């Protein structure tokens, strides 16, 4: 009786060898209000998409993203990695009524993001999120080439395969180095996401066209993993975000590098297939007040919007709200002005 349970436990332990368990949540900097800076900053950044002028909107957006990167490097650095968010959120909710300051410390960023998503749509992704920004900036280096790949309908591509092999090599070398210094084995689970990412790249090299939509469901899985880790008080962090928080944390940093590399081959690959926050944001923004309205009668089916969208969220004007990042690229490129950004306060939340 006891042996098979032991065996299973050992097996699990060996599978998740690089997941570190923490007994307590990270302690907040007591009495500090530095977390308010995050709220403030996020709020300001979320307000900007509302006010920016239509022309030059994309430039404003990139500026905003740069701010996002800067804020997350600095603030998150001081806040011990706010983006272990799901776990921290879970902890923070428990502290309400006991340690209010700490509760605030843990809840501020998730609440801000959820609230802005519910009101203004998933603009966090397109305008603020440092990981999204990182991927987008990196992807612009190879834009010329990925555009062609996309136009061909994601056929099998040797270049992606080469990229995948290249990324895998980087990954393995890095891991080798880390294992020599023995740091890797005590670090957190970022490695897991890097591994998945690498495997994903190989899959995508062969099967991108058929499997794209199915693979996007992986996001739900990663959300479940993180939520489970939060409830079990395991330390499973969303690595990329964490990578910004602790640049000296080699595992997280490796994950960040992997994402950047992968984004060279497939723009926004992390957002498409792995980001656990994406599910939450998409869910919150499902019936947001602000949304992109599409006037079908004006559309000439030129598919320019489809080409410009990094996430393949729009096909000839029809936007998939679960994928859209509200970057307004399609709005700005459409030659017929089919899209308009609308506010509808009476948009009710029926089951959709």
């Amino acid at each position, binding site marked *: 009786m006891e042996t098979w349970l032991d065996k299973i436990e050992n097996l699990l332990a060996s599978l998740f060898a690089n997941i570190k368990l923490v007994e307590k949540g990270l302690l907040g900097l007591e009495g500090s209000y530095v977390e308010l800076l995050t709220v403030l900053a996020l709020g300001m950044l979320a307000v900007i998409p509302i006010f920016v002028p239509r022309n030059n909107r994309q430039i404003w957006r990139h500026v905003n993203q740069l701010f996002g990167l800067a804020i997350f490097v600095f603030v998150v650095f001081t806040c011990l990695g706010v983006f272990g968010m799901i776990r921290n959120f879970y902890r923070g909710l428990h502290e309400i009524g006991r340690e209010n300051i700490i509760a605030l410390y843990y809840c501020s960023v998730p609440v801000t993001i959820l609230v802005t998503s519910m009101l203004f749509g998933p603009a966090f992704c397109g305008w603020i999120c440092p990981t999204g920004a990182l991927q987008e900036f990196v992807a612009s280096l190879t834009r010329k080439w990925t555009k062609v790949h996309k136009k061909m309908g994601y056929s099998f591509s040797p270049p992606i395969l080469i990229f995948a092999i290249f990324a895998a090599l980087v990954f393995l070398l890095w891991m080798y180095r880390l294992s020599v210094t023995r740091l890797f084995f005590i670090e957190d689970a970022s490695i897991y996401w890097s591994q998945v990412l690498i495997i994903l790249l190989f899959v995508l090299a062969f099967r991108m066209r058929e499997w794209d939509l199915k693979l996007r469901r992986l996001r739900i899985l990663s959300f479940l993993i993180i939520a489970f880790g939060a409830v079990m008080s395991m330390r499973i962090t969303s690595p990329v975000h964490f990578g910004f928080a602790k640049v000296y944390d080699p595992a997280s940093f490796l994950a960040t590098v992997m994402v950047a590399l992968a984004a060279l081959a497939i723009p926004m690959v992390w957002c498409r297939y792995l980001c656990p926050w994406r599910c939450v944001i998409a869910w919150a923004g499902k019936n947001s007040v602000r949304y992109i309205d599409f006037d079908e009668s004006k559309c000439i089916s030129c598919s320019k919007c489809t080409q410009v969208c990094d996430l393949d969220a729009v096909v000839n004007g029809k936007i998939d709200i679960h994928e859209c990042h509200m970057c307004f690229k399609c709005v700005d490129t459409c030659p017929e002005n089919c899209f308009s950004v609308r506010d509808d*306060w009476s948009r009710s939340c029926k089951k959709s």
Partner: protein
Amino acid sequence: MSGSDRPVKQWLPPVCIMAMQTASYIIFGISGWFMPLELFSVLLFLANVVICRILIKGGADNVLGSSIMFIIMTHALIGQRIAPDSLTSGSILMVNILILYVGFKIYENLSKLHFMLFVVSYGILFAVFIIGMENAEALFLLALMGLAATARDFRLLSYYWALVVAFTFCQPYAWPAVICLFFLIKILQTASDNRASATLLVFLASGLLLVFFVLLPVLILLADENSRNIVNMLKDADVLNALFTTAITATCSTLILTVLCVPLAYALVRSDFFGKTFLLSIIDLPIIIPQSAAGIMLLRVFSKQQVLGEFFFHALGIRFDGTLLGVILAQIFVSMPFILKSAMTAFSAVPLSVEQNARTLGASALSTFRRVVLPVSARGLLTGCILAWARAAGEFGAVLFIAPYPQTAPVAVYNRFTSVGLVETAPLVATLILFSVLLFFVMQFSINLMPKVHTRERN
């Protein structure tokens, strides 16, 4: 609040506010009450200049813009006083603007009721966080943001309030409370979607309270345990044995009961005889008798030195006290009424005409029973079996007296409670609950696999 309720001229209110701000900056600055040249003050001044320009150009809603300007001005003047530093003050300002913006939009676009609810919610939040709690100003801000996001929709608002209530008032057990409340809200909302009347909704809500009375202890017990405790529990040989014993004995007694009771139930339904009412009420006896009394009664009859027990022991070498047989005996005793009753209900739902048809078509009485009646009433029978199984597995009183050992799960819980106490027993109970709930779902699911017979449609 902005004094610009009737915008006679578009430029008037913003310019007035600008003038007020400049004047107060100068006056208060000279009197030394606050520093107009601090970064924060300057920033807010510039922000107001920008908004003022936009408003004069007519680029935005005048009333809203002026109110925002007013709020910014107020914060510029007293912000330093109400908050420890400019960061906090800035956050408060931001949230205030958000609230104002949302309030305006709700007033403009939605019904009066929405707006009323919004204002009332604000008031209650203020009472809860600022007056009722210590150090919760910052949480108040977060709560306000939540309110801003949800106030436009009654559904969202009710979920929001469920969250607030759960995480402030039910604190250590917030998650069970969240589950219960969300469940309640969802039920009421779908019911009202399906046009249930107000009376029905009230009935539903008050009745559901009782359900939550059942649900809450279960959830709380589960919420207290983490999964590691439960796994550890499963490694305990005692516990595992108890679980197996329970499963095996309950299954045996259910099988015996099924074999004996199902034909009996059929006979009782389909035949009439002297004393039937009396017999039917005797069937209920095990329900009426307290379980411990039932245990003593069984002991009196079946234990080694007693009436029947002695006979069995000497003639066949079987003993009941302290053996699995005893457990099964007790379980059969207490769960018999359940299976008999459900079987009778199931059989009486089979129309007599169906049977008669089968008979006229040449089937014998036995094969009619086997091939017509049994399949038609399969669901009811299975439900009866499951009830009986659950009753048998959960039986404590009768089993304790006749066979305290080998332990079944309920007895194990009792033993552990008396030997080591409440805290140590909780993980075991959580484990048991998890198991029972899982089993129950599996069984309920298996009912759905049974053939479904629409007797009405046939007629």
